[in-house]
């Protein structure tokens, strides 16, 4: 928080008193303004709120403690943020076509979004065919993954794999790499849905093992990757799910940091080296419309994480302190009414994320609120990033808002609020306990209701929804893109052929090995998943085996 100014500035007090008096005569609204995290916003910030004498304590230099200004010395000057758009729709062939188009346009950071059936732990033949491929690519086998990356150099890519536990997609990629003679040390990217706690909290669409089972699979995954796939980030701790589910920006940051502490403590307890696993921890956040609050959230999060690594875990290595994060503009803030307005919203959100020092960014397509994005809308989303980087020059100067009285004061206030929330989670026994008991889910639900109330009563303006409405419908847009049912039928036939032609003995041995490893609580579970993937076991079979051995995870019902 602010400490009093060290040096009285000549005339400061008199000018401030004069300004306050005039300000009060000119403003009628006595209600204090608050941001989404509930922090009161003053109309003006001055050196009384943040004093540059605090520079070395609060800010320092990018790339070193306290990390506020950025995690690398060169930040976006050295390397622009990665443009990482979510892709995935239809069959593996559809994915491969779209991937090659994206690579041809110069991208090297890609993503793979699987179908919801994959998220839920099923093969294509276990769900209603009408849903197949409507929200992501259907990938069930090593052969499907081979098709996804056909004619693409796996070693030249960094892939964000939307691959919740038990990480079958990465297992398939490793099997493909083996077939192609590519060493696993050259496989780079992130398992960016590995944070099972966030799935339990926010319910999204993921395959759920029991909490203890999930805990074990993730730990084995981190261990295996640290040793055998050392350039892969096995963990991305996700605040995005929580904020989309209704958490305030401060809550989302606090819960995410608490999850990261939980995972780090689990790793330490399993005997892993902090200097080895911490530099591979990454984070993933939502960026809402609350512009300065989001910037302050990211700056505060960076500072807190650096302090946790130094003080709680006793690590001085700056690589371990780096709060590397990917961010996505908030889908919840987009409106169906006058949908082109969403282009302006996304640009505002992306700007906040960039000024907040992100490493990688997904900008939402404006039509995400109408359907799975069309390609034309996705192009605008990509160009929004190009415009911000190359026309507006947002990456030209590191932490350009550093030293702003408002931003520094808000960063400190957000930091305090985040830490107070983290203390509450610590007092409840840590994140794992706080999620098992439903405490975090309840807090997020309460915040979601409170926000909705503010929209309903008009305190939170949503243009086109509760203000500046127009009578017309959503307006012109490109036609819906849905997977071709005939192609999906072929995909199902491919799956049946795959199962008929594989080596049954090898499949049985690998599945038995997986069940054995799970049942006896020894050996590395993810290694058993990798072996199974290579032996021709399908995604659905691997998930069913683990469900059987480790137990299903049930969502808490909190209406």
């Amino acid at each position, binding site marked *: 928080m602010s400490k009093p100014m060290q040096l009285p500035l000549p005339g400061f007090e008199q000018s401030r008193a004069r300004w306050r008096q005039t300000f009060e005569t000119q403003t009628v609204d006595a209600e204090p303004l608050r941001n989404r995290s509930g922090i009161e916003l003053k109309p003006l910030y001055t050196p009384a709120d943040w004093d540059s004498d605090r520079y070395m304590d609060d800010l320092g230099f990018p790339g070193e403690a306290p990390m506020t200004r950025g995690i690398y010395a060169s930040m976006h000057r050295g390397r622009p943020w990665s443009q990482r758009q979510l892709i995935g729709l239809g069959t593996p062939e559809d994915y491969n076509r779209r991937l090659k188009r994206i690579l041809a346009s110069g991208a090297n950071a890609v993503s793979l979004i699987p179908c919801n059936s994959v998220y839920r732990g099923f093969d294509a033949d276990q769900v209603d065919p009408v849903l197949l491929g409507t929200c992501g690519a259907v990938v069930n086998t090593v052969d499907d993954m081979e098709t996804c990356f056909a004619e693409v150099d796996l070693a030249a890519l960094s892939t964000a794999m939307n691959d919740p536990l038990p990480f079958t997609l990465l297992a398939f990629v490793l099997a493909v790499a083996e077939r192609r003679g590519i060493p696993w040390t050259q496989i780079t990217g992130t398992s960016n849905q590995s944070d099972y706690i966030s799935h339990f909290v926010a319910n999204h*669409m993921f395959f759920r093992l029991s909490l203890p089972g999930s805990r074990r699979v993730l730990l084995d995954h981190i261990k295996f990757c640290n040793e055998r796939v050392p350039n892969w980030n096995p963990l991305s701790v996700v605040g995005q799910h929580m904020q989309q589910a209704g958490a305030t920006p401060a809550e989302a940051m606090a819960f995410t940091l608490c999850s990261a502490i939980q995972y780090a403590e689990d790793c330490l307890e399993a005997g892993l080296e902090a200097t080895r696993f911490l530099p591979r921890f990454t984070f993933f956040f939502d960026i809402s419309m609350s512009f300065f609050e989001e910037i302050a959230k990211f700056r505060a999060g960076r500072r807190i994480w650096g302090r946790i690594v130094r003080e709680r875990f006793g690590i001085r290595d700056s690589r371990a302190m780096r709060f590397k994060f990917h961010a996505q503009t908030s889908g919840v803030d987009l409106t169906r009414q006058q949908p082109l307005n969403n282009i302006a919203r996304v640009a505002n959100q992306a700007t906040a994320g960039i000024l907040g020092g992100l490493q990688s960014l997904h900008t939402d397509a404006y039509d995400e609120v109408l359907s799975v994005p069309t390609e034309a809308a996705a192009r605008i989303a990509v160009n929004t990033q190009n415009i911000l980087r190359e026309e507006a020059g947002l990456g030209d100067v590191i932490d350009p808002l550093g030293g702003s009285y408002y931003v520094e004061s808000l960063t400190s206030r957000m930091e305090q609020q985040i830490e107070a929330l983290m203390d509450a989670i610590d007092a409840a026994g840590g994140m794992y306990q706080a999620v098992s008991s439903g405490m975090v889910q309840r807090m997020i639900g309460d915040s*979601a209701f409170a926000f909705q109330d503010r929209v309903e009563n008009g305190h939170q303006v949503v243009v086109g929804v509760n203000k500046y409405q127009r009578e017309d419908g959503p307006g012109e847009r490109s036609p819906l893109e849905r997977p071709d049912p005939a192609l999906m039928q072929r995909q199902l036939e491919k799956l049946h052929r795959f199962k008929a032609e594989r080596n049954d003995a090898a499949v049985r041995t690998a599945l038995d090995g997986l069940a054995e490893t799970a049942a006896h609580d020894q050996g590395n579970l993810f290694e058993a998943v990798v072996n199974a993937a290579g032996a021709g076991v399908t995604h659905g079979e691997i998930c069913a085996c683990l469900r059987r051995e480790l137990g299903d995870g049930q969502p808490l019902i909190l*209406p």
Partner: protein
Amino acid sequence: MLTDTPARVLVTKVGLDGHDRGSRIVAAYLRDAGMEVIYTSPWQQIPAVVNLALQEDVEVIGISSLATDHLLLPKLMDALGAAGLDHIRVVVGGIIPDEDERMLLDAGVSRVFHPGATREDIVEAFATLALEARSAAE
């Protein structure tokens, strides 16, 4: 709006997606409005929804769909019909493309709500449809 007996409604999600912010908020709206709300976790199977509707004697089923799960609804409508529950009204809310809205209404869904729908409209629609269902059942 309501008669003495409160409306009995089921709020749920079918299919593969679990985003439940919307279904939780709508359930709370309806409960605050005095209705009897049966709420389930996401990922329900259609036969389970039909059974629950039958056991709980609901008048309106509200389905939240954010990621194409509404494509299953024609099957829900058929299953309700097959179980002799034609009187039950079905409301859908979420990310529903216009093309699909027509398909849903043709399949017998009573109302489709999109993002930005207000509490007032949602509560009123459920109340009206519950009365309709009640008289259709008699």
